[in-house]
């Protein structure tokens, strides 16, 4: 809220400067977002007195005035205002003034000018030209006692500083008002506020009470409703002091009646609303709207109401959206003669919902939705009466106050031990007590003197329990006075987060193998989902995404990473990246399945293909495969198998992988993830022209697959003997024995292990040769035994067994 410094000073009696005040408030109460000098645009505007007024020699509608603007300083000013008269005190803009006109905001620069042959040495100003409302019907006439020569801004009370203060959401009830802020400032200054804290006298109900009947249908949504009728009001401009207070607080001046309601809202925090009483018919009812009921607001906009909206209605129609905005129909105008003034208390939740539903943030809804005190009305009614009678000349025609369940003050017992324990500072009980008193709370020591009985005024609904009071004591004492203190804690070691530790170790390992870590958004749109051929129905969907391209929660990290691959290819032609993050999908049993996924990606521009045991085009795949094997070795993930992907066609994430250049990665029976080339169609969909190999793993599966226990194996004392084997496999006709056309390395390895046991200790593929209908694989074999040096015969026997099994199983022959 925007506060005028002078007004706060007047109410609180503070002697602090605006800057000091901002500092104190920040450390003890509220953040002051900005302090600035009010830009009144009234330099070179002074109070003047019209000494003489003559007809303009060359224009019928103009007059020439002699205006005193200082001792021995009189100016001749041409003036067109009908209401100018000799003896009046007026606002005179002298040459050099740069006025900001209310309605348009444009700047009006004043210079000496010749008007129809007469030189004018300034301008007599209307309210509008001074930025003080919309009245342009004649000049603004000042009070008789205005001192000639005084800067007008000073006279009008516009030389002021403004404080923009961010009121905490739980303090809306008291601090969104000048009085509340003045109380706070006084308390922080260790004194009482200057204004007198007293309730206005209950209004006397006129003997002939002509207030309409008021029916509150919903006691919960409308806790109190106070209505006053004023007759024979005169709608006119507000006096300057009132205008100035509104303008300084960031509001516009409209007319005396509207200005009074705004002034009282600023002063007390209580919103008020005025209806044209002559437009009302029958009883005033506070009720829920009927579904589809319509209301044209005073802005001219028509809203269709919901059955949850609270409205003010008469016998014929809805008059206002309660606590939010009035309707157009019964709004006050210049012609209004009789008014019905509403001062009511509405429930925060109901108002908030209506505000959100209709998107109508107003000064009233802002206050109501934070929760107001129904007893606040008692502070307001008397002042409202006094101001409307004094400034709009209304006569009270009737009063109604519906307040079925009076809210009463409540008590909290506050233990001094608790204060000390929570704050961790020894604040003397008498000091704690003082702070609470300064905040206007009634305090009584209990019998043992170990605690206080605090009576909280209904004005502070935020103070509900001991901790709320401790906060008040703490902030008034000053948090900066609480010295840091080491906690007394148990030395028990902290529990390890095994999965987190594993995740970090994996990330760290990958960076050492040359991979850069990326983080990407957790969502993408249907464009990426369809480009990656992912099933739309498995995705979780956001109701309110930033844009349609961020509507789906990622079920795999692939689409986002592919976009990043495309972008980074503009700068780099080979790179290795990974991301570890959460992915989401509809669960089978639970509505939501969330798991951590690891996507490792190798990208090579096609010109950089290279390889030895594998063809150049395949090198990228095998390079990533080897890196993954090293990763598994690092984390003791064993029994790794790469199974051609096509056997697992039902995994939805598999769609992005090349159908014949990809593998399911398993550790024993457990599936860890998929490793493979990017499907060429996907590459095209994502606009990528490079070899991209992806490996996506389920992180929890990786963590579980780690070998639990690692035991030492004695080192062999006997040397291994090595021998090479080269086997030629004829290509099998399709459909016979196996679906795969060629024998795979894995099949041959299985064979080696089977036939080579127990003496074959190691094997290593060193050559692959394919020609015509033959495929040849060559391995280095290492033989050995733990308890002896092998004889040549033993080795020969094993070697022959391998050859025999290869022949039997695959019709293979030994290359000689």
């Amino acid at each position, binding site marked *: 809220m925007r506060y005028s410094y002078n007004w706060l000073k007047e109410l609180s009696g503070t002697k602090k400067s605006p800057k000091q005040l901002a500092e104190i408030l920040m450390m003890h109460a509220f*953040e002051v977002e900005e302090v600035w000098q009010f830009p009144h645009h009234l330099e070179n505007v002074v109070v003047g007195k019209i000494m003489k007024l003559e007809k303009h020699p060359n224009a019928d509608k103009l007059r020439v005035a002699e205006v005193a603007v200082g001792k021995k300083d009189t100016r001749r000013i041409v003036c067109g205002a009908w209401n100018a008269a000799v003896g009046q005190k007026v606002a005179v803009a002298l040459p050099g003034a740069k006025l900001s006109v209310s309605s348009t905001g444009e700047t009006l620069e004043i210079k000496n000018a010749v008007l129809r042959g007469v030189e004018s040495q300034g301008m007599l100003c209307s309210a509008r030209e001074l930025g003080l409302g919309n009245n342009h019907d004649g000049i603004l006439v000042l009070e008789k006692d205005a001192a000639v020569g005084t800067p007008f801004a000073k006279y009008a009370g516009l030389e002021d500083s403004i404080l923009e203060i961010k009121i905490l959401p*739980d303090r809306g009830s008291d601090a969104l008002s000048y009085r509340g802020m003045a109380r706070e400032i006084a308390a922080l200054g260790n004194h009482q506020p200057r204004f007198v804290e007293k309730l206005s006298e209950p209004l006397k109900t006129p003997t002939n009470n002509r207030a309409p009947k008021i029916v509150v249908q919903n006691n919960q949504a409308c806790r109190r409703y106070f209505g006053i009728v004023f007759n024979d009001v005169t709608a006119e401009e507000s006096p300057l002091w009132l205008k100035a207070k509104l303008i300084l607080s960031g509001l516009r001046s409209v007319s005396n009646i509207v200005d009074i309601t705004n002034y009282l809202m600023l002063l007390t925090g209580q919103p008020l609303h005025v209806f044209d009483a002559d437009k009302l018919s029958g009883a005033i009812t506070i009720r829920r709207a009927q579904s589809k009921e319509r209301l044209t607001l005073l802005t001219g906009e028509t809203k269709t109401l919901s059955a949850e909206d609270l409205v003010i209605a008469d016998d014929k129609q809805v008059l206002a959206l309660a606590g939010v905005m009035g309707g157009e129909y019964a709004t006050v105008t210049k012609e209004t003669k009789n008014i019905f003034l509403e001062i009511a208390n509405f429930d*925060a*939740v109901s108002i908030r919902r209506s505000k*959100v539903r209709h998107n109508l943030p107003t000064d009233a809804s802002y206050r109501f939705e934070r929760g107001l005190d129904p007893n606040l009305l008692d502070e307001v009614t008397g002042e409202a009466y006094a101001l409307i009678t004094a400034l709009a000349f209304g006569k009270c025609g009737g009063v109604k106050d519906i307040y079925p369940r009076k809210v009463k003050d409540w008590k909290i017992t506050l233990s001094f031990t608790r204060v000390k*324990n*929570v*704050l*961790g*500072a020894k604040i003397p009980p008498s000091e704690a007590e003082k702070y609470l008193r300064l905040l206007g709370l009634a305090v009584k020591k209990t019998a043992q003197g170990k605690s206080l009985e605090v009576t909280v005024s209904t004005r502070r609904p935020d103070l509900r329990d*001991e*901790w709320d009071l*401790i*906060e008040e004591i703490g*902030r008034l004492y000053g*948090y*900066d006075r*609480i*010295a*840091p*203190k*080491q*906690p007394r*804690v*148990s030395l028990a*070691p*902290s529990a*390890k*987060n095994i999965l*987190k530790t594993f995740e*970090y170790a994996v*990330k*760290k390992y990958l*960076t050492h*193998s*040359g*991979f*850069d*870590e*990326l*983080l*990407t958004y*957790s969502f993408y749109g249907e464009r990426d989902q369809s480009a990656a051929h992912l099933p739309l129905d498995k995705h*979780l*969907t*956001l*109701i*309110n*995404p*930033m844009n349609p391209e961020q509507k789906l929660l990622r079920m795999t990290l692939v689409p*986002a*990473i592919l976009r990043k691959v495309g*972008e*980074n290819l503009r*700068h*780099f032609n080979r790179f*290795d990246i990974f991301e570890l993050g959460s992915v*989401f999908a509809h669960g089978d049993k639970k509505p*939501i399945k*969330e798991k951590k996924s690891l996507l490792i990606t190798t990208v090579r521009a096609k010109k950089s293909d290279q390889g030895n045991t594998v063809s150049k085009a395949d090198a990228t795949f095998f390079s990533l495969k080897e890196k993954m094997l090293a990763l598994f070795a690092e984390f003791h993930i064993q029994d790794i198998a790469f199974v051609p992907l096509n056997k697992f066609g039902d995994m939805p994430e598999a769609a992005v992988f090349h159908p014949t250049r990809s593998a399911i990665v398993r550790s024993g029976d457990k599936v860890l993830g998929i490793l493979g080339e990017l499907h060429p169609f996907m590459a095209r969909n994502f606009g990528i022209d490079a070899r991209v190999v992806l490996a996506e793993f389920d992180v929890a599966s990786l963590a579980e697959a780690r070998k639990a226990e690692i035991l030492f194996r004695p080192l062999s004392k006997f040397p291994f003997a090595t021998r090479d084997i080269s086997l030629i496999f004829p290509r099998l006709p399709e459909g016979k024995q196996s679906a795969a056309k060629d024998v795979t390395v894995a099949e041959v390895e299985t064979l080696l292990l089977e036939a080579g046991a127990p003496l074959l200790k190691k094997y290593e593929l060193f050559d692959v040769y394919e020609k015509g209908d033959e495929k040849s694989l060559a391995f280095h074999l290492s033989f050995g035994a733990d308890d002896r040096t092998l004889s040549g015969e033993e080795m020969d026997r094993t070697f022959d067994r391998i050859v025999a099994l290869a022949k039997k199983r695959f019709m293979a022959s030994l290359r000689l």
Partner: protein
Amino acid sequence: MLKARISTLEAEGKNALKTVKTIADLEAWEIKYLGRKSELGNILKSLKNFSSEEKKVIGSLANGARQTLAQAFAETKARLLEQSVDWEKERIDVSAPGVAVACGHLHLITQLEHQIEDIFVSMGFTVADGPEVESEWYNFDALNVSPDHPARDMQDTFWLQRDEPQKENFLLRTHTSSVQARYMETHTPPFRIIIPGKIFRNEATDASHEHTFHQFECLMVGDDVSVANFKYIAQAFFENFFEKKVLIRLRPSFFPFTEPSFEFDISCVLCDGNGCPVCKQSGWLEIGGAGMVNQKVFEAAGYPRGKYQGFAWGFGVTRLAMMKYKISDIRLFMGGDLRFIRQF
């Protein structure tokens, strides 16, 4: 006579060495003058036949000659070895590049998260975590954020579509505080935990706003954990993190899940509180929110009201990174540009 012979041999050997030009010649020379069957060798071997007096004189003379020759030999050998290679021919241009060894980079956020975790773990904190898709209960209700609190506005929270009638609403967690309630349900105080994680706010992105960023939550609960303790832990953490003296400043604030609540600032680590553009000349940096856990949060977790007390605080890792490295655009963090990633 033998004495003269020894001197001659020494002189002869020295002279002969001067004409040696190759390693092969040197080896021949070595056999001739220093070998086991060399003349000098034989003299030394024959020493046992002499009287003790002669042995003394001749022995020292012969050994001296042998040492002199051996030293000369070593020097010549070193010289010849040095000369035997054409070093210029072997020269490489050391300024030329080799075969690049790829070195990857952890994302800056990961680096900082780990650094932060390390400090807290050293103070006995446990690292906890929880899901990013969270139920309305854990993200809001359990933290005393009532259904009508402005934080639940559509503008702030990404809500998930309910495809079938389900009891709960789900959302993308708006803070790591959601893990507080989860942790408390299964643990009894005293405990101290930190929760790093990715969080989501439904707001438009620009250089200083991002809908996805990383946060830290710190929660310590016990019988007597106080505001003063919070100040100690926060200060200890930041001094450790920035490796310099840091002051903590608490200002009143409001959060539904804490009471009392604070905004907390640290003295500007760039200008040491003297005022600079980063701290807008105030000498302080706004870091995050904190407070003493609201008893209603404890109650929601099933703890008896008033039995425990403790603090909770949260701060943005992304923000901390921007401050520490003077990063001007927050979007770079999730932007995936390797030119950014590789700088850290």
